[in-house]
């Protein structure tokens, strides 16, 4: 992915840029709003990571509004220390695709940025998701693995759908809470792990290979067994 990072804090920016490059992405960096807007508007990126409070008179929201005003639909993730509910709502209203508050774990940022990529491709309406021998039909709401029908509860279905839509990508617990349950807070107990483990019981256990993998210190990933 070609990613633009607009962030004025040298340490945070250096850490993010290095991490993204290590994950195999091409990264451009701007340390003020003016350069950030110029780069975002003049070049093509797969995703933009945007800090809200920036020097140079143009803050993150202004950049975002300008881009959206120019019908630029590049996926944008706002990375901000402004953590109140209203701040988040403001960011999403201005047209951001995701909102992550500082401090953050790099794994969370990486997972969310990579998730944006899939969303940005804008493929037509999908009716069927397939990973290896696992099939999920969105119309008949049926799940089959190796031709064998699997019965899932509605919520399990949505969980599997979310994982399959992000197949090959890391999905964090917070992303699952937000994407599947529409919860925007962290429960103190790790309820998500239990839900995933139940899903595994149905989708992976009866079959020789597992598709849902735990990624240490990050979350989960649904992918075909590496050859």
């Amino acid at each position, binding site marked *: 992915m070609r990613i633009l990072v607009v962030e004025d804090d040298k340490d945070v920016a250096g850490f993010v840029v290095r991490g993204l490059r290590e994950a195999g992405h091409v990264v451009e960096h701007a340390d003020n709003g003016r350069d950030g807007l110029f780069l975002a508007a003049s070049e093509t990126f797969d995703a933009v990571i945007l800090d809200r409070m920036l020097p140079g008179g143009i803050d993150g929201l202004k950049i975002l509004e300008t881009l959206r005003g120019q019908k630029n639909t590049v996926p944008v993730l706002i990375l901000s220390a402004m*953590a*109140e*509910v*209203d701040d988040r709502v403001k960011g999403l209203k201005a047209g951001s695709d995701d909102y992550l*508050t500082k*401090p953050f*774990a790099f794994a969370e940022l990486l997972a969310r940025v990579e998730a944006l990529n899939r969303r940005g491709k804008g493929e037509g309406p999908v009716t069927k998701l397939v990973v290896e021998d696992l099939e999920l039909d969105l119309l008949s709401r049926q799940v089959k693995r190796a031709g064998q029908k699997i019965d899932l509860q509605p*919520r399990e279905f949505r969980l599997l759908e979310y994982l399959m839509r992000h197949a090959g990508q890391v999905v964090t617990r917070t992303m699952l809470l937000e994407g599947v*349950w529409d*919860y*925007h*807070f*962290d*429960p*103190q*107990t790790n*309820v998500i792990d*239990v*839900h995933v*483990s*139940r899903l595994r019981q149905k989708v992976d256990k009866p079959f020789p290979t597992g598709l849902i993998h735990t990624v240490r*210190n990050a979350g989960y990933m649904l992918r075909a067994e590496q050859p």
Partner: protein
Amino acid sequence: MIDRTLFRSAGFRFGAIYALLLAISATALALFLWWATAGLLDRQTEAAINADAQDLSERWAEGGLASLIVTIEGRLAQNIDDDAIYFLADRSMRRVAGNLERWPSHVTTPGTLYELQVMRAGMRSLANVQRFDLPGGFHLLIGRDVQAMAQLRRLLTDALLWAIVVVVLMATVGALVVRNLFRRTLANISATATAIAAGDFARRVKLTGRGDEFDQIAEVINDMLERIGRLMDGVRQVSNAIAHDLRTPITRARTRLEDAALHADTPEALRAAIERATTDLDGIVAVFQALLRISEIEAGSRRSSFTRIDIAPLLAQVEELYGPLAEERGISLVARTAAEVPAYGDKALIQQAVANLLDNAVKFSLPGGTVRLNASVAGRVEVAVSDQGPGIPASERVKATDRFYRGETARSTPGSGLGLSLVAAVAHLHGGELRLEDNAPGLRAVLVLPIPEEAEARPAALQPKHDFI
């Protein structure tokens, strides 16, 4: 300078206004009294004279001089009160008929009412008279004796003069009383404010118990002080938290890092130590976020986003989220909620509050226990979560919603001590409360919310006392 400060005093102004009002009403009363007594008699006399004149002129027209004389004499004879005065004079002002000795010299203009001294039957008296000129050079004087009326008027004037003296005295005394009352009431409030400014935050404005406007002001001020006190307590709790409760995990993280820097022999050990320290820091961040969220809720700004919602599906969702976790731990989660649970509020906040309660219940339950989620609507909305865990002793329930409070039984369980604080904050924001009860055994936590009709009607600023957080 003294005068100016006197006029600037509101107490003096109120006193002066009282005196002025009293003076104006007293004057108005006196004027009316005058008009209704002395004035009335004057007007009656004038009317009687006019009626006589009308009558006599008719007689003159009918029967001429002779008839007029007979009439006058007849009237005088019939006049029992002896107050009628008639005098008919010829061209040269000599007496023709009547009960005066001679024509009063200064009665010269016809149609004017004169008040003058007359001599009647050798007695000096006061009379109101009017002159009429008749054809043929005759002059007629018609009048009434007003000696008695004049005495009454004098009496009345004296009485009113004394009344003025009394009114002035009363106005002065009244003004002083009003001013002192005003001062005393304000002194109560201002003494409280001064004491608070000086640091005695427990002081409250004294109520007289009369329930009047001053009591209402005092109550509003006391409520305000209560609220400020709570907010200050909140701030104090947060600073205490930073000073004490966060010091522990920060110390732990710092020690780990320093220890690793000094003693880690292998890159693996170093990495492991850093990872553990990062986890500690994440925990600190989570606590901070929870604290900020509680403050955000307590500030009340989220109230603007309140809408009418049905929380039944919301409860079903939370139950669905925690169901598998409970099952995994051998706890049965039983939900019994009304088909429709209407409320007025913030969906996400209520959801989080209920999630916190369920989180606690599942966390503190032993395998084999039952956690119940009940929701009922009967005058108020009650969402109850009960467990069969260790519960909270009655003596500790009040403190249980304090930030960072952790019960003795909870020390060994992971948690920040902020879960119930958040639930209580959400309840208060919605004009409700969080009730902690004994489930014998276990804890029954009830989130009480007002029904939407009540919650919507209630202006945010005027909530009853117990709603102040």
